Each structure stands twice: as structure tokens, then as C-alpha cells.
């Protein structure tokens, strides 16, 4: 898988921490692998919306990658509940069902962005960069992959 310039938190230079929510173990593995190529850190995983809320409280991630269609509680409702409790939460919906009504509903209820499955790493990377805004920074190209460089995780 392609390697990307490492993205970090601006405030402390630490890796961006992600909560991945999807009822498919596969989808979670796939997203976790992409996160790794972005230089991020997996803070937690959940298989449904209700577990996502609990995991958010426990891990306090920088970004939530949230599927929509899930058992128990769907992703849009979980996103809304998380944002109600944590207005600073950055939730990105990741779903194969990407029609306009769904996207609008997710954005109206607190999600910051939407990525359609199958997820292209380069698309997700740009969305993360956009959603993190000034709270995220990308290591310069020279530092990427250089042991001990500014972009290297310690």
C-alpha cells in the first residue's frame, strides 16, 4: 500500500488517533492499515453505533471513521450522539451507501465529511487533512521515512 507523508497533531506532534467503527471486521482492518500508512494510531475499534459511543468516551480520539449501516445503532445516530456530547468531535462517515440524502442527513447531524466505500487511501488522506484543518500538520517530504527525522514516530 502507498505510503503517505505522516500527518500529526499540531498541538503536540503526536500521531493522530483514530476510532474505527464498522460492523465488518474486514473494513476495520482495511481502514486500520490505511491509518498506519498515514502515520496515525488506532485508538480503538467498535462494531456498532452504541459501542462507538462508549469507545469514544474511553479513548477520546482525534478522528472517528464511522460506517452508516450497522446493527444495534446506525452510524448517523451514533455520530449525532457523540457530537452532542463532544461538540469538538470530528466524525467522518465511511459507507458504501453514498446517495445524497444519506450524506446530507449525516452532515446535518454532526458528521464533518463523507467517504464512499471502497475507500481509496488517497481520498481518505485528503479528507483527514481537511477535517483536521489547523489541528493537523503534515511532515515535510524530507522527513518522511527518515529514521529519527521530524516525520518519524518515536
Amino acid at each position: 500500500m502507498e505510503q503517505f507523508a505522516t500527518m500529526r497533531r499540531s498541538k503536540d506532534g503526536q500521531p493522530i488517533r483514530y476510532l474505527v467503527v464498522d460492523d465488518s471486521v474486514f473494513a476495520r482492518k482495511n481502514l486500520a492499515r490505511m491509518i498506519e500508512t498515514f502515520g496515525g494510531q488506532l485508538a480503538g475499534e467498535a462494531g456498532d453505533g452504541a459501542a462507538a459511543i462508549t469507545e469514544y468516551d474511553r479513548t477520546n480520539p482525534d478522528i472517528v471513521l464511522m460506517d452508516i449501516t450497522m446493527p444495534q445503532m446506525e452510524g448517523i445516530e451514533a455520530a449525532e450522539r457523540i457530537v452532542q456530547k463532544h461538540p469538538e468531535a470530528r466524525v467522518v462517515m465511511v459507507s458504501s451507501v453514498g446517495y445524497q440524502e444519506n450524506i446530507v442527513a449525516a452532515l446535518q447531524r454532526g458528521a464533518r465529511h463523507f467517504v464512499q466505500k471502497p475507500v481509496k487511501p488517497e481520498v481518505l488522506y485528503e479528507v483527514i487533512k481537511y477535517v483536521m484543518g489547523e489541528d493537523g500538520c503534515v511532515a515535510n517530504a524530507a522527513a518522511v521515512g527518515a529514521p529519527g527525522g521530524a516525520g518519524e514516530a518515536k
Partner: protein
Amino acid sequence: MKMELIQPFINAADAVLAQNLGSSLSIGNVSMEEEAYRRKGVAAMVRLTGDIEGRVIFDLDTETAVRIARRFAGAELPESDDLVRETVFELANQVIGNAVTTLNDQGFHFRVHPPALHVSEHGAKSSEDTEVLVMCFETSSGNVFMNIAMQYSVQSKGLAAGGRG
């Protein structure tokens, strides 16, 4: 054959398989089922209800499912029933989600039910109102069969005839 209903599923399967497997694929046998559906391997069935009603079955043999799973995950994974089931379900979810997106943006509204493991050897025989199309996608990881039975619901038939979409 109502190709306007089926084409989005073909396009979605083509795109999802190519993206996930990182290679091109070709469409092999395409046939209209006249006899009851016979399962070829591990199959996931997804039902749709609403303006369009029907079901889509994804069917692949265990070896193909494991190879696809390893491509999906980008890692060696031990073969297990759970892994195979998960692969077929995820494939079905992604293809159907993408097709539904296209159809929804054309004005059709319907509900997609969660995938269910299709365990019987035979599926429903096609009827006058239901077209059953079986396609084989030949991929570098093996053959993936998609079986589509789709029709306009009674309520939407008038709308469809009126040039919807």
C-alpha cells in the same frame, strides 16, 4: 430484461472488485436463469424492498473467498468459516451500497436489508415478473458469481413507465 435496474449492480461490482483487488477483471458467462438457482459456494443474499424489489446473491467458492480476503486485508489470514463469510458479506455490502447510491440518485427509494448467508442449495425460480441474471466476474483471485433478481414494485411501475430516472 430491465437493464436499467441491473446495470448499476454490474457497474458497481466491476468497480468494487477492481478497486479492492487492485487489478482489472473481465465478465465471463452471463445467463438468464430459467431453472432454480444453484449455489456454487459460499453465498450472501441481500434483499431490497421499496420502489424496486428483489434480491442479489454473491457467490464464491472458499478458495476464492480466502484469496480475496487476503487481498482486502493486505495480509495473510488463516482460513476460517468466519473469514469466508465476512468476505462475501463485505463484498455484497460494497457492491450493493454503490448500486443503491446510483439508483437512489435516479429517484428510486428502497430499503436494503442486511446480508444473510444463503445456505440452501437452490434459490427461487424466476417468474414472469422477476428477471434473474447470473454473471460471472473473472478476477485474478477467482470467479465471483452475482445473481440478480429485480423488478419494479407494483406501486412504482406507473412511475417507471412514465420515464423515471
